[in-house]
């Protein structure tokens, strides 16, 4: 099929004058989409980490007290996903056994070479924050637990049981400092992921300074949505009350970030459309051709306009808390899918355009492949397994009424 695509030049001049140059010719090496679903997951997962971290930062650094019920949970949520952020990359690499070359012998001119270091710093900061946030509770659990769990808590607390007032005050200062450091680190982690795409001048849909900004705001949207949805679902499943004030604050924060994210996404499209420069006909043909359904219908109409309306209703009208929570969960679910589709449209969609500037290739995901659909499901399931295990060691909701 691919060969046929390369060998066939279907004149598409009839579509309109803007597409005169298109003859559906794809460079022979462009028929294959080299960055597939694992590279869609990579920014998605780092985005979830960033968004969840924002929630924690709002509480621990900016003192948004209403977010207290989810502050610790969002940290653990971020950690669970950060643990798996490298999984898609390793599955994608042709020679994953050489991955440490990026850390040991990096090329300073490459944006990609920085990932290992940025990732390591993010992980260090996040683990440190969790350590100091949970330290008093871990000391308490150490004294009440038995067997291997007691040994584990002893190791995690570094064999320190000092939870005096003085120690706690110091902990609080350290947490604020670490979170203050963590915000730029988280922003760099994900803005940088956007820059990996934005720095590819050969691809007109990626090559924009807006790319890191778009990625960053959509990351916040996906992470906050994930925390809202996970909080509501877990509380429902464990038959615990849902803190309505907390949900309201998260939804308001989500609304703000989503307006920014959607505005920048649309700004990018409309700029291309208005300027009509260089590769406009290619980008226009892409969005109205191969991506017509996944971009305009799923990402924009269902994934963006619909949530904006719902968020508007939630913001303007005074709704009863069960309905508000239901809508919050629903809109969060839609936005989680929206961000995933947005990643797909950027990563896969961008590669459907051949550098011949004359045609588009096709992408058909495989089920059983190291970058296939089954692998995607497994990679996305692992963080939840990690989150479950983390919850057993670091209880999400302990002392929540204090």
């Amino acid at each position, binding site marked *: 099929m*691919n*060969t046929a695509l*390369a*060998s*066939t*030049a279907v*004149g598409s*001049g009839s579509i309109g004058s803007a597409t*005169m*140059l298109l*003859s559906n*010719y794809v*460079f*022979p*090496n*462009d*028929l*294959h989409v*080299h*960055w597939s679903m694992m590279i869609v997951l990579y920014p998605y997962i780092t985005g979830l980490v960033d968004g969840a971290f924002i929630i924690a930062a709002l509480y621990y650094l900016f003192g948004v007290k209403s977010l207290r019920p989810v502050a610790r949970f969002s940290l653990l949520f971020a950690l669970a996903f950060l643990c798996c952020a490298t999984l898609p990359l390793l599955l*994608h*690499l*042709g*020679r*994953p056994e*050489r*991955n440490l*070359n*990026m850390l040991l*012998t*990096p*090329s300073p*001119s*490459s*944006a*990609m*070479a920085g*990932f290992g270091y940025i990732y390591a710093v993010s992980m260090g900061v996040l683990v440190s924050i969790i350590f100091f946030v949970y330290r008093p509770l871990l000391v308490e659990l150490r004294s009440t637990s038995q067997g291997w769990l007691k040994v584990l808590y002893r190791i995690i607390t570094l064999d320190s049981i000092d939870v005096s007032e003085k120690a706690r005050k110091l902990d609080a200062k350290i947490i604020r400092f670490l979170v203050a450091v963590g915000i730029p680190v988280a922003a760099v982690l994900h803005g940088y992921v956007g820059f*990996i795409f934005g*720095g*590819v*001048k*050969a*691809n007109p849909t*990626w090559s924009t300074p807006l790319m890191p900004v778009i990625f960053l705001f959509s990351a916040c949207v996906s992470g906050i949505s994930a925390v809202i949805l996970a909080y509501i679902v877990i509380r429902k499943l464990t038959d615990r009350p849902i803190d309505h004030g907390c949900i309201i604050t998260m939804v308001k924060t989500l609304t703000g970030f989503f307006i920014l994210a959607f505005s920048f996404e649309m700004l990018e499209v409309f700029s291309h459309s208005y300027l009509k420069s*260089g590769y406009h006909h290619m980008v226009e043909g892409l969005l109205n051709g191969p991506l017509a359904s996944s971009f305009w219908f799923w990402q924009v109409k269902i994934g963006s306009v619909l949530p904006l309306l719902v968020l508007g209703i939630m913001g303007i009208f005074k709704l009863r808390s069960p309905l508000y929570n239901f809508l919050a969960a629903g809109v969060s679910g839609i936005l989680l899918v929206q961000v995933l589709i947005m990643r797909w449209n950027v990563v896969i969609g961008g*590669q459907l355009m*051949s*550098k*011949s*500037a*004359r045609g588009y290739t096709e992408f058909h995901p495989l089920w059983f492949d190291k970058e296939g659909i089954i692998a995607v499901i497994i990679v996305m399931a692992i963080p939840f397994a990690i989150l479950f295990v983390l919850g057993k060691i670091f209880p999400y909701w302990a002392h929540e009424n204090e």
Partner: protein
Amino acid sequence: MKRRDPLPDMQKRSFLKKVLNGTIAGALYLVYPMNASGFEWPEQIPGVREAYDIHAQKFAFIVDITRCIGCGSCCVADKQEYNVPDGNYRTWVERYVKGFSDQIYVDCPDGGLSGYQTPRSDIQEEIRDTFFVPKLCNMCKEAPCVQVCPVGATFTTPDGFVLVDEKRCVGCAYCIQACPYSVRFIHPKTRVVEKCTWCYHRIRKGLLPACVDVCPTGARKFGSLRDETSEVYKILKGPGVLTVLRKEMGTWPALYYKGARMEVI
């Protein structure tokens, strides 16, 4: 008159064998002149076999579009030289057809491996012009692939060649995304990136790139810019118009095109 006895069969066979061997040996001697050290291919790039100063050498590759006949010999030679896997291309030849409506029709079945033996039959309008465009690595002086490679597996040699160290490459494909000319691919067996090298291994031995060597019309030209008698030197020094592909990318290719129409991307 005494009748001569015919030669016995064995003697005739032996005689013919000797004649045949002599002919082959003579022909080989003409093609591969021998010296004291054994076989040595004739030098195709003058001066390269002398002390090779890697920092002083400079080469250029010129594709003359007006000469290409789309026979595909270059693609076959390249595939044989490197055992290029099917569906991937280190070099290829595109066919451009331009109609009077200014619509451009481009195709490249099998990368031009089979040659363009029949005209296109699916174009309805009157054709204004048609030509072939060989494509290969542009050996950019500001190579985006070199810039983005996270482990330095893609590098530029002091004599201007962009090469890939297959023992270092991690197969991330970032260079494939960065290359504006799409000359790179992931080899399905080695799982690392591969691309045209302008046959660097041959050049270092004073031989022309395989595709240049087999081109029957001289559409592909390669030579040293330190050699003032080389064809590429004369073309580059002369007044003829040369272009590079996708100049707006700022990659400064060392691959020049002669006679390339503005439609060529």
